[in-house]
C-alpha cells in the first residue's frame, strides 16, 4: 500500500480579488493589500454588509480557444472563474494542453495524453443569475402581493429562459467546461462540500494519481458569492461582519475576537498535480510534493461549529499519519481563518490540541485580505501554502495582528519573514455542513 506513486504540485492558477494568476496573489499578500471593497457587481445598498471580495474583470476570450468563445455565454460566474483558473494553472505549469495548442500558444502534441489527464474541481451551490431569472419570473407574478402564477409560467413564462439555462448552474459544469477546453478525459469529479471542497478535491486528485488512474489532475475549486442571493444567504445564516462598510480593508479579521464575522467573496484556485516521474520527464518546475491528506466531519452539528474542533482534529491527525510526519516537524500552518469568532475558535482549539507543546509556529491566514470565497477558498489557501514553501517566506496575514492564539501561531503582521519551510499544512472546513479536511505538502529537492 505504501508503494504508491508520488505526487507533486507543478502549477497554481488562481482568481482572487488581486486578479488572475499566482503572481498577483503572492504580490498582494506580501504587500499587505486588501482585495475587499464596496460590491460593484450589483447594488449592495440593501444588504447588511455592502462590501465583498470581487475578482477584477477579465476577458473570457483570453482563457479559452477562439472556437469555444460561444460556450462562455452559458457559464455562471463560478464556471468563468474555474475556466480562468484552469488556463492560469496550465500556463504556470508549462503544460501544453488542448487549450494552449488551439490558442496558438504552444505546439502539439499535448504534454499529457488526454486519457491520463483528470480533473477534480470543487463547486458550491451555484446561485442562479438573479436579474435573469427574476426578469423571467416577474412576467407571471403580481408585483403587489408577490403571488406567482405557476400555470402561466408552465404555459408560456418559462420559455423566456434560454434552453440551456439549467446548464449554467449545475455544479459539475465547472469541471465539464475545464475538461472540454483542456481535453482531460481521465476521471473527473466535482466535490460539493462548501468551503472544504477545495481541500477535498485536491486530496481526491492526489489519491487518483497515486493509485494510477491518472498521471496529471487539475484540481481545486471555484465559487462566487458575489450576487444578491449569495450575499443574502450569508447574511441570513449570520456569517457577515456588520458595521465595517466604511473600512473594508479592516473588516475581515481572522482570529481577532474583537470583530465577529466574515466578508463574502468570490475566488477560484486550481492546481496541477502530477505524478513525480511524469513531471521529471517533462522537466517541470516542482513547487512541492503532496504527502498527506486527511478528512473527517464534525458529527455534533451540521451547521454550528463544535467548540473542541474534534472534526478538524481528526482531519489534521489523519493527514499527519498519512504523511508519516510528526506534529513537531510542521514548519508552516495555513489556517482557514474565516473571521467568524466561533468558527475561528473551533479551528484554534483543534490546532492547539494537535500541536500542543509547540509555540510561535509560522502561520498564514489569507482571508483577512480577500474574504470567504466558499468552494474556491481552500485551493487558494493551498496555492498560497505552496508558494510560501517554495519561497521559504511567510507572507503577512492582514488583520490578524491582534490575534490571540495563546502563543501557538506566529503570523507575519507587517512584513513577510523568511523561514525555512520543509513541511506545510493547510486545513479547511465547511461552514454550512460539517466536512473537514487537511493537506500536507513537503519540499521536493530532487
Amino acid at each position, binding site marked *: 500500500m505504501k508503494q504508491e506513486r508520488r505526487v507533486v504540485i507543478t502549477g497554481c492558477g488562481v482568481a482572487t480579488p488581486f486578479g488572475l494568476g499566482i503572481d498577483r496573489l503572492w504580490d498582494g499578500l506580501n504587500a499587505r493589500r486588501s482585495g475587499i471593497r464596496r460590491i460593484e457587481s450589483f447594488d449592495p445598498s440593501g444588504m447588511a454588509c455592502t462590501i465583498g471580495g470581487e475578482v477584477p474583470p477579465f476577458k473570457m476570450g483570453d482563457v479559452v480557444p477562439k472556437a469555444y468563445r460561444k460556450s462562455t455565454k452559458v457559464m455562471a460566474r463560478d464556471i468563468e472563474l474555474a475556466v480562468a483558473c484552469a488556463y492560469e494553472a496550465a500556463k504556470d505549469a508549462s503544460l501544453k494542453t488542448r487549450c494552449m495548442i488551439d490558442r496558438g500558444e504552444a505546439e502539439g502534441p499535448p504534454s499529457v495524453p488526454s486519457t491520463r489527464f483528470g480533473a477534480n474541481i470543487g463547486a458550491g451551490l451555484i446561485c442562479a443569475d438573479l436579474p435573469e431569472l427574476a426578469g423571467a419570473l416577474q412576467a407571471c407574478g403580481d408585483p403587489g402581493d408577490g403571488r406567482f402564477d405557476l400555470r402561466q409560467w408552465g404555459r408560456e413564462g418559462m420559455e423566456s429562459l434560454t434552453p440551456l439555462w439549467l446548464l449554467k448552474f449545475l455544479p459539475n459544469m465547472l469541471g465539464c467546461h475545464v475538461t472540454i477546453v483542456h481535453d482531460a478525459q481521465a476521471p473527473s469529479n466535482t466535490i460539493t462540500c462548501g468551503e472544504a471542497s477545495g481541500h477535498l478535491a485536491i486530496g481526491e486528485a492526489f489519491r487518483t494519481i497515486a493509485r494510477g488512474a491518472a498521471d496529471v489532475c487539475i484540481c481545486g475549486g471555484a465559487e462566487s458569492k458575489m450576487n444578491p442571493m449569495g450575499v443574502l444567504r450569508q447574511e441570513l445564516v449570520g456569517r457577515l461582519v456588520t458595521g465595517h462598510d466604511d473600512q473594508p480593508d479592516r473588516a475581515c479579521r481572522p482570529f481577532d475576537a474583537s470583530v465577529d464575522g466574515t466578508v463574502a467573496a468570490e475566488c477560484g484556485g486550481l492546481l496541477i498535480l502530477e505524478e513525480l516521474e511524469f513531471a521529471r520527464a517533462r522537466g517541470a518546475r516542482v513547487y512541492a510534493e503532496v504527502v498527506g491528506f486527511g478528512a473527517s*466531519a464534525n458529527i455534533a452539528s451540521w451547521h454550528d461549529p463544535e467548540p473542541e474542533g474534534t472534526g478538524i482534529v481528526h482531519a489534521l491527525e489523519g493527514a499527519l499519519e498519512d504523511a508519516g510526519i510528526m506534529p513537531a516537524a510542521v514548519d508552516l500552518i495555513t489556517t482557514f481563518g474565516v473571521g467568524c469568532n466561533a468558527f475561528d475558535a473551533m479551528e484554534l482549539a483543534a490546532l492547539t490540541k494537535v500541536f500542543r507543546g509547540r509555540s510561535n509556529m509560522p502561520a498564514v491566514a489569507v482571508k483577512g485580505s480577500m474574504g470567504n470565497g466558499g468552494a474556491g477558498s481552500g485551493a487558494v489557501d493551498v496555492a498560497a501554502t505552496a508558494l510560501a514553501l517554495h519561497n521559504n517566506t511567510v507572507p503577512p496575514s492582514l488583520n490578524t495582528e491582534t490575534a490571540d492564539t495563546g502563543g501557538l501561531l506566529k503570523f507575519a503582521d507587517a512584513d513577510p519573514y523568511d523561514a525555512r519551510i520543509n513541511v506545510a499544512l493547510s486545513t479547511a472546513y465547511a461552514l454550512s455542513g460539517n466536512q473537514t479536511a487537511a493537506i500536507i505538502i513537503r519540499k521536493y529537492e530532487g
Partner: protein
Amino acid sequence: MSRRTVITGMGWVTPLGCDIEQVWKRLLRGESGIRLTTRFDASTFPTQFSAEVKDLDFEAIVGPELAARHATASLNSRFALAAAKMAWANSGLEADPPKRTNRVGVYFGGGEGPLDFTNFAAAAVCGWDRDNATLDAKKWAGIARAKLDRLRELEQDPNMAASHVACMLRAQGPNLNTLTACAASTQAMGEATCIIRRGDADIMISGGTHSMIHPLGTTGFNRLTALSTRNDAYESASRPFDRTRDGFVLGEGSAIIILEELEHARARGANVLAEIVGYGSTADAFRITDIHETGRGAIAAMRLAIENAGLTINDIDYINAHGTGTEENDKIETLAIRSLFGDRATRVPISSVKSMMGHLIAAAGAMEMITCVLAIRDGIIPPTINYENPDPNCDLDYVPNKARPAKVEIALSNSFGFGGQNDTLVVRRFKD
C-alpha cells in the same frame, strides 16, 4: 491484493416504496411509479408527471427522537436519513455500532436541496423594477430577507444530506459529497470503494439522494427538452430503448449502501450481500450538451471498470444500463456496449429500471446498484418496461417488459451525466 470492499447493508426511499423487498417485487412485476406531479401545480407544464416518493413515513423509520433532531432537514436530506437508517439496520451495525467512529465515513452523490420556490419567486416578482426592466437589488433584499428562512436556505447546500447522516450515524471518517449530475452516486460508491481499498476507512456509508421535482427543476429540464412530454400516457412515458421514446421522466428518492472492508465485515459476522470489484470513471471532454458520438467516454469507463475488477467482457452476466429514455443516451449507450462487447453484445441482457422508477438524477446510480445486488441474489433480471417498438439504433437484448430468470454472478452498472461524466461499477456475488 488490495483490501476487498463488500456491501453489507442497503436501504432506499423510492417512487415504488421504501422497503427493499417490496420494491423489488414491484420492479420484477414491471410496475410503474410514474403519476401526475403533486409536489407543485404542473398542470400547464410541458411535462405534468413524475415519479414521486409517495409513502415515506419519516418518523416511523428514523424514530421520533431523530425526526425531531433533524426536523429542519430538506426533502432530499430526509430521503437520505431514512435510507441510511434502514441500510445501517440492515447491515447489523445499528445493533453493534462500530467503536472507531473515525473509521466510518460518508461519500454521497447528493443533490442540492429544493429551492424555497414560493418565497423566492415572490421576492423576485416584487423586487423587479418594471419601469427600468431590471432587478432592484435593494428592494429585493428587503423582501427576500423577510420571506426567506435561514435554515431552509442553509439546507439547500448539496453537502447537507451527507452532513446529517454523519451526525445521525456518528460517522467521523472522511466525509464527501460529489455532484457530477446523473453520475454522482455511482461515482460516490466508486470513490468510497477506493477509500476502503486504500485503508482510509473500514466502513463507508455511500449512495445518493435527490429531488428535482420542483418548479425550477422541471423548468430546467423542460427547457433542455430532456423530459418526456407524454402527458396522455404518463405511466408508460419512460421508454428506454423504445423507438418512440421522447425523453426521461424525473424521479426522486435516495439509495444508500453500506460498504465495508471484507475482514472488518467478517470479524463482526456480517451478512455480506455482494462485492464491489471494479470502478471506472472518465470524462467525455466533448460538449456540455451532447455525448460524444462514438461513446468514447462510456466505452472507456466500462473498459476501465472491467479491467479494475481483473475480469473480461466475457465475465459480465448483466448490464444495468443508464438507459434514460432520451433519444441520444440510449442510442449511444447501445453503441458503446456494442463497441466494447463486440459479438457478445447481443448476448448480454441489459435493462433499465428507469422505465419504472423514473430518473433519480444524482441518486439513480445507487438505486440501480441495489437492483444489481438483488438480481445477483435472486437470479432474476428486472425488465425494461414499455419496450414495444424496436429501434434500429437500439438492437440489443433489453429484457423487454418481463423479468427474466438468469444466473447473474457479475453485473455492470452504468451512470452517465450531463456534460460527459461517465462512471461504471462492477459488482459480483460474494465468494470467499
